[in-house]
């Protein structure tokens, strides 16, 4: 097994072969379930108001991966999404643009053509999203196609079946190969935490993805319930924080699915600040995978600035 980067000796040792990888992952400290849930709930009650809220809203908007992953997607829908990504609230030019637009591989070119020169990335899901049930060749071809079409970010799914059966080596190899196929594109590794059952598994999968070279670890596809939850995101944020302590490298986290309101988004930002650190309050290191969240952020932004409640009539229809 080949380590993707030069790692400190303890970590380099972990990826030497499958049995040492297993030993490393099972040697990670267990997650205190009650503790992490209580801490997540406790931080969730923190009150963010007025100027700080406005700042948090703008930050959250700039972190959104505006997503459409439906069987019914059309080129027209992707183009309108790209327009919304460039200028989320056409009445208010000071609203920041979103971080990226996330689509299926066949829609990448449409989105990329519309976003040239805007600084907004096109992210593509790949590797037989959302189930990940296909052969390695097809997953690689899927990834290469997305990158050729212009994707600057690739969201891959791990083989949860292999992970849950304990075939960590196989999952590791897959991530390494996909990372190679990505070239310069950033790789986000979707753990699909809703299928991993325990927080211990989430911690192991996070470390596995980081060891294999994932630039981001992402909670979910959005197709499985439960999707992103605060405690799961806490565990993943702890992993990237510990990764930085051991290697000096900054890796990102992306919760996706089920984050619909500004209140939720701010709870996540508080978690980022408290668990990982203020360094991670940056669109390069933290993203929201969402579609309906953006409208709620825009409505809340208007409410803050106008002094009265806004409504869905004042933002674009998705």
């Amino acid at each position: 097994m080949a380590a993707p980067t030069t790692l400190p000796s303890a970590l380099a040792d972990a990826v030497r072969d499958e049995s040492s990888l297993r030993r490393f992952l099972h040697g990670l400290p267990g997650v205190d379930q009650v503790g992490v849930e209580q801490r997540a709930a406790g931080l969730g009650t923190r009150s963010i108001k007025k100027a700080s809220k406005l700042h948090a809203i703008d930050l959250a908007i700039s972190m959104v991966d505006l997503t459409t992953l439906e069987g019914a997607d059309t080129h027209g829908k992707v183009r309108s999404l790209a327009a919304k990504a460039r200028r989320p609230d056409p009445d208010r030019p000071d609203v920041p643009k979103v971080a990226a637009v996330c689509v299926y591989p066949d829609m990448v070119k449409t989105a990329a053509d519309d976003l040239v020169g805007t600084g907004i990335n096109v992210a593509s899901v790949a590797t037989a999203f959302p189930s990940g049930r296909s052969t390695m060749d097809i997953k690689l071809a899927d990834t290469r196609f997305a990158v050729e079409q212009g994707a600057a970010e690739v969201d891959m799914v791990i083989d949860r079946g292999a992970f849950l059966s304990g075939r960590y080596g196989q999952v590791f190899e897959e991530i390494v190969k996909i990372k190679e196929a990505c070239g310069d594109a950033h790789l986000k590794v979707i753990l699909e935490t809703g299928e991993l059952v325990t927080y211990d598994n989430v911690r192991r999968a996070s470390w596995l993805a980081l060891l294999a070279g994932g630039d981001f670890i992402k909670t979910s596809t959005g197709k499985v319930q439960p999707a992103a939850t605060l405690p799961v995101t806490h565990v993943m944020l702890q992993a990237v924080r510990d990764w930085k302590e051991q290697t000096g490298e900054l890796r990102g986290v992306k919760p996706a699915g089920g984050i619909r309101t500004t209140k939720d988004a701010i709870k996540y930002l508080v978690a980022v600040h408290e668990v990982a650190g203020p360094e991670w309050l940056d669109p390069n290191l933290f993203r929201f995978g969402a579609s309906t969240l953006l409208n709620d952020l825009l409505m809340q932004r208007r409410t803050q600035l106008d002094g009265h409640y806004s409504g869905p009539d004042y933002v674009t229809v998705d």
Partner: protein
Amino acid sequence: MSDRITVAKTYKLYIGGKFPRSESGRSYPVTDAKGTFLANAAHGSRKDARDAVSAARKAFAGWSGTTAYNRGQVLYRVAEVLEGRREQFIAEVATSEGVAAKKAQSLVDTAIDRWVWYAGWTDKIAAVLGSSNPVAGPYFSFSTPEPTGVVAVLAPQQSSLLGLISVIAPVIASGNTCVVITSQDRPLPAITLSEVLATSDVPGGVVNIITGRTAEIAPWLASHGDVNALDLTGAPESIRADLERAAAGTVKRVLRNKPSEDFAVTPDMSRLRAFLETKTVWHPMGV
């Protein structure tokens, strides 16, 4: 045997078919006409109003989409449950408004009859207010009334049940959903009405009932971007003009009926008509 200890009540709000406490955690004592303590009511805040508007918006598609006939049946069912709670309403109206039992009984009976009267209107509105229009061209042109949307209702301060029903029933009969701020000092009949609505077939969110200070919550509803119309009946005189101005900011329909309105007389269609839009369709005959 000792006297039974009375069950002290602290009522809650009625939002989206549920009975939440006020987000603010506040409540206020409700007294009868002579100042004797009756119960605690939730002291609603602007955030409760906001939640109620979201609930009303969520319920609008379903409620406005049901057939007029079905809406009539649902409203008639409410009248049945109102009738079942008749004694409770009589007692509450008597204590709240400080009237004799006989007068209270007549007020409650009129209120229930008023509800039935509006229930009967649901499937007749389109026939009375709609039309096929004679136009100078080869088109078939017709107009139909459609509900305005989410209506914020400031319920009358004096008439705690008859007045309340006279302002809610016409709003929901035509397919609107509403957020109601009850009479500030006489909220108990409105709270019982929310229990009636929760146990009849009215979908959650169609009527949302908030108790509290009208002057505190009303401005937030008047300026709310997702409220389509405002009924000023129970608005304190001192803030009526401000509420109208705020409502104009988001182009709401405003019903400016005065608090002095006599609810005992059989109404006309004006309250029904106040919260309707007219949709006109031009249809090419194509021959």
